[in-house]
């Protein structure tokens, strides 16, 4: 299954409360993703909460977009990536 980095922009800033409401929101995204066979690995969020870089596993870019629409998340650029870590080549 390919891995993608999805760039998103939240003009109002992405603010997920650190409580049960926030947890429910995240799990809601996870459930929505499952419908399209997409897995949210984790995300990197800019300091001002306006830009995020989300790492996803999914079958195709179309599935990523469908899943995003289900959770009403914006989609900027989608890039297919391979993981590279400092100690891969030993």
């Amino acid at each position, binding site marked *: 299954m*390919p891995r993608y980095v999805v760039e998103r922009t939240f003009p109002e800033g992405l603010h997920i409360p650190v409580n049960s409401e926030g947890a429910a929101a995240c799990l809601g995204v996870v459930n929505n993703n499952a419908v399209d066979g997409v897995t949210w690995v984790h995300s990197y969020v800019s300091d001002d909460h306006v830009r995020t870089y989300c790492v996803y596993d999914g079958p*195709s*870019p*179309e599935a990523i*977009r469908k899943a995003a629409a289900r959770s009403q998340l914006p989609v900027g*650029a*989608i890039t*297919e990536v391979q993981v590279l870590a400092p100690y891969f080549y030993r």
Partner: protein
Amino acid sequence: MPLLERQTFLDELARRSCLAADAAGQAVFVCGEAGIGKTALTSAFLESAQEQFTIARGYCDALATPHALGPVFEIWSQLLETPAAGLSRDQLFSGLCARLQQATSPLAILIEDLHWADEATLDFVRYLARRLAHWRCLLIATFRDDEAGPEHPLTRAIGDLTGSHVSRLKLATLSQAAVAQLAAAVGQDGARVYSITGGNAFFVRELLSAPPGSVPASVRDSMLARLARCSADARRVSEFVALSPGRMETALLTHLLGPSQGAVDECVERGILVHERGALSFRHELARRAIEDALSPAKAQERHARILAALLDRSADVARVVHHALRARDEKALLEHAPVAAARAASVGAHREAAAYYAAVLEFVARLPLSSRVHLYEKHAYECYLTSQIRDAVASAHAALDIWRELGERQAQGRTLRFLSRQHWFLGDRATAERCANESIAMHEAFAPDRDLAMAYSNRAQLEMLCGRVSAAIDFGERAVAIARELGDVEIESHALNNMGTARLGNDDESGRPWLERSLELALTHDLHEHVARAYVNLATSAVRSQQVERAERYLREGLAYCDERDLDSWTHYLQSYQARFDLDRGDWDRAAQLATLLVDSAGSSAISRIPALVVLAQVRMRRGDPGVTQLLDQALDAALPTGELQRIGRVAAARAENAWLNGDMAALVREADRGLAAAQGHDDRWMVGELCFWKALAGAVPQVPEGLPAAYALAARGDWRASASEFVVRRMPFEQAIMLLAGDAAAIAEAGEIVERLGAVPLRARVAEALKNAARGRAENPCGLTHRELEILRLLATGLTNAELARKLFVSPKTIDHHVSAVLGKLQVRSRAQAVTVAHELGLMK
């Protein structure tokens, strides 16, 4: 042995059975490797459900060639009073479905071992699964997914069944913990059992009930160990039963071996055989195969012969007879029974099986007189054609042709030649296809005009149409129509009118439309399914290609509805591939991608449907800037080139050219577009040529715009952005419209920007921004009315490059550079390049 680690599956089956009982029918496919416990699961479930459900069971057997519709007949007899004998396939299917649809209390249907099913049974499963969503019906089918790869008929039959009422349960092997639990119950070492069996449920059970002291390393070892402990009589019984796939009736066994009750009892006691419903069988196919495989070939052949003799005495089913005749290598029996089995299979639509039966006979066909031989060859060829085994069809047809020649039967030769003409076309051998077509006509013309001659003419018309030779297509088409009308043969008339109409429409000649529509009308009135499908396809595809939006919408909608209702799957797929392209052109990219993905992923679609689907999906991705474009375009090219057909190659070339443009690689753009244009030579496809020139023009590589291109493309190639954009609006092609607007003034660029946002065409955003910037700067800094290209060249003139070097640098021809340089000199009103550079410096144009 209790059922372990299956609770989730049992719960899921229970849940779905509740839905089914509530008139929300379900189709559940249970799969897993051999011996994993599919039957155990379904049996356990059905036992719990038998209070609520009426249950009907059908089984597929591992016969050399399965009994066509065997399981369906079994199920019929359990659910309906009227006998099924003598019913046509359609009557069987609709009769069973009517019973299911009208049921007031819930029904469960179980079909086991679908991987051994014949083609007609697979058709039935598919037919039922697509219709039962609102019935009180639960369909459970089991199969071995390790035996059914992507090309297997089963995968193609059920692979693209969709809907929430369809589900697949894949069973896994038992875990170590489960095996340990079972082993502990009989005092054995769970870890050891697990390491030998890998958790395969049947093997575990087999191992745990093996005679003490034995150390079997496989099911085979285990079975052979049991056999070794048997008396000679019991061994003989086991071996005979092992040679009979599925089960062997005790009566048959008695017939073969005389009274054997003692031996049978011993087999049952030793856990080798199971005795139920008057027949003997093994507990699992794996066990049966183990014993069958252990027999020496000579012994097996001799025993098959004895079983065969017994079956013939008892007038057994012809599928079983043929199975044993093949293994006994009994020519006489095969020659007598296989053709019967084949004809029966063909009559119910089990064409794969029919072809296999005929193939089995052909080995011994030299013993038959010529007149019988030739019919077998012909039937084999026809069944192979129906199942897309074209090379085999050609081989047999040629054999038949030789015999007809020897027998001096010219009409028959003519018919065979016409058949060969079609087959060679499918193989891509156009030259031979044409030669056969001509010979066929010559044969038939020696006789009074009849159906055969009409068909030969129509066949030739079709060939000419496919090659784009319009007047020849019409000439032969008219001859066919004349004879067909005299004979009152509607089918041939419809076929010929279709060829003629498509020939003209494919050439953008609207006068062909009435013919095609008449062909459709005739076919609809007389319920000629395939002809209706072909007419819709030709009407829809020509409308899509020539961007006639309302027409395309209508034909696609009607055509898809018609084909879907009648399970005309290959036509449906082809129409869907054009629907995807239609959606792409209208800017409906989500829908286009969805349909294209379905076609690309579906194992059942043929090359002609997959190639356009690959292209559409690639185009959606490249227009959005999404990844995964290159592999799709490469796959499409690899599939298209061998066809040699402009339709496929041109389409792929245009998409690859577009991709190159989006990546800014002008050299690649020209290369790809030229590949498409080369394929278009000798054809008259102005839309394809227009599309390819559109992209080339964006690279400035169309110095001379060809005559006769469709308006939108011609205007674009000439650089008239405004008129071309308006044309694209009329054609409802927003993406192309936006590209044209980008070359316009600030207002146009702004409009392009809006379209880009609406479509989500991310890669064009940068171009919009650049164009806006240039427009703004241009107004202030470009008093001489130089175009961007001219400004670019003016700036490069200062570097002192020659025209040839400039041409290479900008990937255009030296002539184009000449043209631009003259324009620059003219606009700046100077006479030399040096002067131009000086003026440019003065005006502050050099950056």
